[in-house]
């Protein structure tokens, strides 16, 4: 369906594509894998006509094509669904699906009746039920994705590109999406699927192409590959142990953090648990189960209505983030760019932000001391940054995340809550982050890891709490920890889960 030959694309200072050959057939799901900066987005944008390659040719549906604009590619039947959905939140689902090509009545007005009927048919054909009259802003992320896919189906789509579609959804929603994508494949659509998650590649892709440093490392049938081979291709070297060895913490001592009957409406209904020093405790559950809200309610960035919390044996009620930080409880939030990183400030200022008073003297902020502290963190976590005074915006996700680890590990040594600590970072950096988490626990911190990536929870934690709809529905320990048991508690009906928890 599409063939790229010798594509080269150069940007100043940005890794791009170098002599890339790539081919995807009609009726297959072709996954493209690669670390951040490997050239995945550049490749997609070249296919979509958003970038014009310096060298190389594009063949689409048997003809050589030179897209001058994205619109040409779109008109030829190429649809891209980007990670950030391009929908109009105030319009209804059907209006979004038919945007730009709404059916007309003979008076030239919009034929809403036909539009809603056809929207319904299209959504039905995807095996998905949602109200085409609902404004898009009221739909879940998964439903919004369906709208995007339906939108792609309205035009004569021959090639559909999905850019990390599961980044913001999980569990059942992702499965629905996979079914829908497979349905499209069986109808003969060529599908290019970009993802970070290796597991889903194996459940959905027919073939896989791995990009590394702007080059095609290889295209293989999915059956020829296993997880280790894929990781090795992506990283460029063998990675034997993705996860550091587990250690069971000493549970004879008093827990460093206890949480009892925590309530923070509307998302947190009933949460109790203990966290021990040196422990890596997992908090699993589907997106929307209230995991991040638990963290916010403990940290003090969201009000709690009920519950008792102790930190280091002392009562810790109604705290503010300031109190939490001062008493050694840190919270690395899930939205790295929106809530974590301060992109206008340099690296050193990012590290010291929670503990500015430590660097304050009578004559002001001690910049030398601050730079020194940042240098220590650069060494400790092997952060690839030009220096403490350089900016953080252009760094890779992995290095940005390491800076935030430097920030919180430095400020807070008792308890660290890590919300999606490896979201959107590449495999090589993930391995390093896992080592860092292990090290922090070894240094005596109690670590609570919130993650939607089950393999991460399974690989990292010695104990896992599972949440569902605002309550802890299960606790899984040591050898019982597996993706299946966690999913069981995360999705099981409440009564069922209560039984499970009692057992």
């Amino acid at each position, binding site marked *: 369906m599409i063939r790229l030959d010798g594509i080269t694309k150069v940007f100043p200072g940005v890794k791009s594509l170098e002599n890339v050959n790539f081919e995807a057939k009609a009726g297959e799901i072709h996954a493209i894998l690669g670390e951040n900066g490997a050239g995945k987005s550049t490749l997609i944008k070249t296919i979509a006509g958003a970038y014009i390659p310096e060298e190389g040719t594009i063949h689409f549906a048997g003809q050589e094509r030179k897209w001058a604009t994205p619109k040409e590619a779109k008109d030829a039947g190429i649809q891209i669904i980007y990670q950030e959905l391009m929908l109009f939140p105030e319009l209804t689902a059907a209006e979004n699906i038919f945007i730009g090509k709404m059916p007309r009545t003979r008076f030239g007005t919009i034929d809403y009746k036909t539009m809603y009927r056809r929207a319904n048919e299209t959504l039905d054909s995807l095996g998905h039920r949602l109200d085409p009259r609902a404004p898009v802003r009221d739909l879940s992320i998964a439903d919004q994705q369906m709208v995007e896919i339906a939108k792609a189906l309205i035009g004569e789509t021959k090639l559909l590109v999905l850019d990390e579609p599961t980044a913001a959804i999980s569990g059942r929603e992702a499965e629905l999406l996979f079914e829908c994508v497979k349905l499209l494949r069986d109808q003969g659509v060529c599908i290019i699927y970009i993802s970070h998650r290796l597991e889903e590649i194996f459940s959905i892709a027919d073939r896989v192409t791995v990009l590394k440093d702007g080059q095609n490392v290889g295209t293989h049938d999915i059956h020829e590959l296993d997880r280790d081979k894929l990781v090795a291709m992506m990283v460029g070297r063998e990675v034997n142990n993705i996860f550091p060895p587990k250690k069971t913490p000493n549970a004879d001592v008093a827990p460093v953090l206890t949480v009892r009957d925590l309530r923070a409406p509307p998302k947190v209904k009933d949460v109790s648990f203990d966290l021990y020093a040196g422990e890596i405790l997992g908090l699993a559950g589907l997106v929307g189960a209230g995991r991040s809200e638990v963290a916010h309610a403990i940290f003090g960035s969201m009000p709690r209505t009920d519950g008792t919390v102790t930190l280091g044996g002392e009562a810790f009620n109604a705290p503010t983030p300031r109190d*939490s930080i001062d008493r050694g409880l840190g919270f690395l939030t899930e939205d790295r760019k929106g809530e974590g990183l301060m992109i206008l400030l340099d690296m050193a200022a990012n590290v010291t932000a929670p503990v*500015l008073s430590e660097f304050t003297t009578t004559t002001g902020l001690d910049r030398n001391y601050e730079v020194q502290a940042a240098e220590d963190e650069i060494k400790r976590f092997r952060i690839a940054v030009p220096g403490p005074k350089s900016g953080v915006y252009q760094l890779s996700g992995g290095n940005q995340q390491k800076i935030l680890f430097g920030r919180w590990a430095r400020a807070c040594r008792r308890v660290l809550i890590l919300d999606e600590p490896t979201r959107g970072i590449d495999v090589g950096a993930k391995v390093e982050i896992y080592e860092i988490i292990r090290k922090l626990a070894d240094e005596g911190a109690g670590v609570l890891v919130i993650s939607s990536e089950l393999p991460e929870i399974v690989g990292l934690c010695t104990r896992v709490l599972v949440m569902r709809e605002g309550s802890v529905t299960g606790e899984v320990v040591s050898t019982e920890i597996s993706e299946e048991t966690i999913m069981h508690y995360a999705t099981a009906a409440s009564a069922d889960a209560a039984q499970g928890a009692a057992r």
Partner: protein
Amino acid sequence: MSEVSAKATEKTTQQMALLRQFSVPIALVALVATATAVQPSFLSPNNIQDILTQTAPLALVVLGQAFVILVRGLDLSVASLMASVAVLATAFNATSNVMIPLIFASAILVSAVVGLINGLLVIKRNVSPFLATLAMMIVLQGIRFYYTQGAPSGSLPEGFRFLGAGRIAGIPVNVIAFTICFAGLAWLLHKSSFGRKIYITGGNPASADLVGIRSDRVTITCYVICSVMAGIAGLFLMGFVGTVDNWVGRGYELDAIVACVIGGIALTGGRGTLWGAAAGALILVLIFNIVIIMGLPVQAQMIIKGIIIIFAAALFAKAIQA
């Protein structure tokens, strides 16, 4: 071939970065050169003193405005506050210079309260800075009119004239006052930990709260600083003009914002320096002067001001993209 074009783009980006970095000094030099070309006596010590004296009151307002803009705000009430403070000064009906410190103290107090209300409206009641400070501007105006019933009548101590237009060893007194304020505020913004909190809050209030910074308090404090600076500026401008009417400082709210934008304070918050803001004020005053020197109608000032805003905004947009 591709390599060549990439290098070329890289070169232009570097040139752009350089241009941005030095745009303020370049503009200053260019303006002074233009003015000198049109009128050779422009660089005479006397004229320089005059220009600095004209700049100081605006620059004082600009210093405060910069703090508010840095935390993603805007203060439209500064000019109205300047006039109100001037009217307040006449209310003392004082003739002795001994009263000046008391007048200053009460002006600062009133200004601080105004700033506090602005800040509380914006932070606690979630009123947009534009609306909150616009309303404050009108309220102050109303109070002022109500009190003066048309024209202020009280007398002022002679000393204000000296503060506004006098010189010590050839240096304008209001420039000395500005320098002191600048030194203090520059330390606060660029050297103290509170200044860091301002940049963190302005860059992203959500992440500020999550590192334990009370972004609400930081923002409110910036509004208080802005109003206090406006109050001080009002007294100095009153001394410079020599008389008090209901419109001391008229137009200063927009001039102050324009000066900040020219000086590189981003309206989106968290970006810019106090040096830049002060230089922005000087650039603006130089432009006004050139308009007059060149014999252009005063209305040309407005047109030029508008064009500058567009250029500054465009330059800033380029900076965001890069």
